[in-house]
């Protein structure tokens, strides 16, 4: 796979999975045994993309991502992203706050045979939890 093809897979991850919230994209662009690496402090550490999307649709159904940068080399693609969302449902056991939140982060992906095999996530959980008033 070329790095351009790998970038196209990662672009679909944000636009088709997260912005269009199309669950069937998960099978098209990720391996069944995809490995998700969360930093210890990530507020929400879902076991799969399926669970992740379900939680997001409850807690932040209008979440919308913007891709700021795509950097690719070999079998890796890195994306610098941000999102805006409104917390209109239960998140991590806390009732909806109806607050608007934003977050920004950088994710690293490993692409194998045209699908995401591994992902290292890094967002700003501290900032997110502060915006939701979970921590002050």
């Amino acid at each position, binding site marked *: 796979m070329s*790095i351009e093809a790998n970038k196209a897979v990662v672009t679909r991850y944000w636009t088709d999975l997260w912005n269009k919230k199309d669950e069937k994209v998960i099978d098209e662009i990720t391996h069944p045994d995809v490995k998700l690496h969360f*930093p*210890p*402090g*990530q*507020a929400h550490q879902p076991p799969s993309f399926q669970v992740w999307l379900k939680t997001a649709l409850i807690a932040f159904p209008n979440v919308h991502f913007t891709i700021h*940068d795509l*950097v*690719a*080399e*070999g079998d*890796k*693609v*890195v994306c*610098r992203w941000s999102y805006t969302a409104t917390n209109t449902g239960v998140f991590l056991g806390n009732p909806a706050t109806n607050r608007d939140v934003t*977050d*920004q*982060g*950088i*994710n*690293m992906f490993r692409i194998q045979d045209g699908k995401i095999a591994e992902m*290292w996530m*890094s*967002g*700003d*959980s*501290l*900032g997110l*939890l502060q915006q939701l008033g979970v921590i002050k």
Partner: protein
Amino acid sequence: MSVEANKELVRGYVNAILVNRDFSKFNDFTAPGFYIDRSAVPEAIKGENALHNQMDMLYGAFPDLDLQIVDMVAEGDKVVVRFAAPGTHQNTFAGIPATGKRATWKGIVMYHVVDGKITEAWANWDDWGLLEQLR
């Protein structure tokens, strides 16, 4: 500058400035106006003194901090580093007195390189996870 040269520059910056904290070399690696956008911190870290203070605070709390480059991905004028930094909490950090606990701070940082100098960086460090490991 080639991608390889950009990677070499970032590796040099990490070793000289972040690991050895030899700030006499700061201008060898960074352009005037250099800043770090830290998502968890509203104010960016701007310039040599701000970064120096930040590193003094961090190594003050974790004197044996071992900042490691785990992976690098580069293309065009961007270099991305995935870091892992284990250390022992030996002095007050973010108001938490020394616990003696081992903790690992993880982060991904994207560097923008122009004409052989780093002009800006976007840093996502797992600050919340570091604090949680000290509880």
